[in-house]
């Protein structure tokens, strides 16, 4: 009961999840289109679509994993502080958080590279501190709050595009794995 009370409502979760979906999917799809010309050299349309189903299914799983982050914070932090402002605080956490992840990804150009600086205690602490400072101010500064709510609200459209595609992809993969 205690847990259920702390979980945000569906209306609160949807815009935050939409922001996650927007970033995660667009990142992968941009890479997909970057690679597409070379894929067209030696893969048939059917094979390319089969590859795409794996990308969309993986993105779906990734987006759900990421969503667990703000949901977890909503459970452990005071309700007034996080759960009641879930859209603003969740989006404020997700946007710079995933942005930072993209920044780290750019330093992992291959498996041989290991940007150790990102995994030092002071580096992680600094990143977390800045992130939470932003989350804190996002709920306090009115203009920032409105901008974040506006972005999150507009992002919902991506759910209508990507989630059905991902569900179809998961079904297609299951079909291929079974038959």
């Amino acid at each position, binding site marked *: 009961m205690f847990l259920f009370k702390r979980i945000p409502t569906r209306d609160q979760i949807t815009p935050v999840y939409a922001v996650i979906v927007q970033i995660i999917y667009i990142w992968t799809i941009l890479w997909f289109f970057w690679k597409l010309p070379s894929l067209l050299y030696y893969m*048939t349309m059917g094979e390319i679509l089969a590859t795409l189903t794996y990308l969309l299914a*993986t993105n779906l799983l990734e987006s759900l994993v990421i969503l667990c982050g703000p949901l977890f914070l909503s459970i452990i932090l005071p309700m007034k502080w996080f759960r009641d402002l879930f859209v603003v605080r969740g989006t404020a956490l997700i946007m710079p958080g995933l942005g930072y992840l993209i920044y780290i*990804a750019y330093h*992992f*150009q291959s498996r041989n590279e290991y940007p150790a600086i990102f995994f030092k205690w002071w580096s992680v602490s600094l990143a977390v501190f800045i992130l939470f400072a932003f989350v804190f101010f996002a709920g306090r500064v009115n203009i920032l709050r409105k901008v974040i709510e506006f972005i999150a609200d507009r992002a919902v459209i991506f759910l209508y595009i990507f989630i059905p595609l991902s569900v179809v992809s998961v079904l297609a993969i299951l079909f291929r794995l079974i038959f």
Partner: protein
Amino acid sequence: MTPFTRRDFLKLSLATSGSLALSRLMPAISATKENQNTSLPGVVILVFDAMSARNLSLYGYKRPTTPNLERFAQKATVYNAHYSAGTFTSPGTASLLTGLYPWTHRAFNEAGLIARNVVERNIFQLAGEKYHRLAFSQNTWPNYFFGQFRESINKILPTGSFSLIDHLVGDKLGKDSLNGQRAFEDFLFQNDAVPPSLVFGLAERLIHRYQLNRAHSEGYPNGLPRTGSYPVVFRIEEVIDGLIETIKEFDTPTMAYFHLYPPHSPYAPTESFFRSFQGDNFFVDKPDHVLGDHDSVEKLNNRRRVYDEYIASLDQEFGRLYDFLESSGFLEKNYVVVTSDHGEMFERGVMGHNSPLLYDAGVQVPLIISAPGQRSRQDVYLPTVSVDIVPTLSHLMSGKTPDWHEGEVLPLLGGQEKPGRSIFTMYAMKNPAFEPLKKISLAMRKDQYKLIYYRAFNDYNREDRFELYDLEGDREELRDLYPDDPAITRSLRDELLGKLEDVNSLAPYMA
């Protein structure tokens, strides 16, 4: 309920006695079948990735890189001018497995696939049901072909078998492993750039890092052997142990294809051979080529030395495998084929392969075939090519050759020596698999001559260029005879251009 009549009783008795008689006969029938099967020779194809024949002491290289291959060759047939049909794994291996040139199988792009309309033309399909067909490749790209041949292979060992670190997802997706592997290994977890899977891609790299730190790397001063763009990390001795254990389990005639990653880069010689060729005053200096990468001679010779040390390390472990094959009596009943999918260059400004340059270092590969019970060495000096392996093995396994292959049965294994035969090797990576070949380098070897044709390269202002070498008098391919225009030039050039025109008229290439 109908009554059980006398007629029913007679029918039942007849059926029972008939089945009893048949069941007594069945073991005899299956035993006969088994006897027939056990009389079949097994076949093991052992492919060492990127092993140039020009760097093996077996073929006269100055550094003692392959004493154990030489031991193996003492009871085998050695092909001294054997060529790969392609300059890197996809076309080279596809030709080896299908008996088709790249212009027919179309797997000439990186990670390319065999044309869907010729996918049933492969060595596993030819071996047929009477053989247990087993495939293993440490290199992911041949694994894609196994995915295409899935219906004809009884067992495909995962690429990470016998390894310290494996793919996280890779080929673990059962029936859809081909698509899954391509999606994860070539895209979501791609190694040559930022991972397109933001969360799992980063997680995969961190997990790989963690596994690498925990893997014991003693005995490998340059780091553990690994598979270039893919996460598989291994120790050569453990892979050879794995192969030995796998071979021990063969209890029916088996057609096995083992594709090992060494000595492909990154070169990781063992401690025993690390720097063992340093300071031996062996130095190769050949002129830079306009289509090369313009690496310095010093750098090339340094990398050549490490590559040679890696070959020597691999050869030492091959020696253990050979000792097992010999002491277990395996060689008495089985054909063992040792070859490579392409060569490796350390000359003319080029390091590695994937180059449009078609000099022998990049395309001449070892081919040694030990026949069951063979006691002495035989040598073949006429040019042969990787598309010959499929018809030869088909001939050895069934006495027949398919009508679709583009090679010849190898001399001394059922085929005839054919002087004047033309063989081809090519680089066509920059062409779409679905269209005629436009930008290509194509070499034709005929008797002692080798004609190389470069078409549509920007460095030549997209003009046609030719080089001609007489390999009998100029083994190192240093004196281009083409400008001298000897009498042979025109006929060779006409034949090569005619061949290219023929194969380009085969469109559409895919069903």
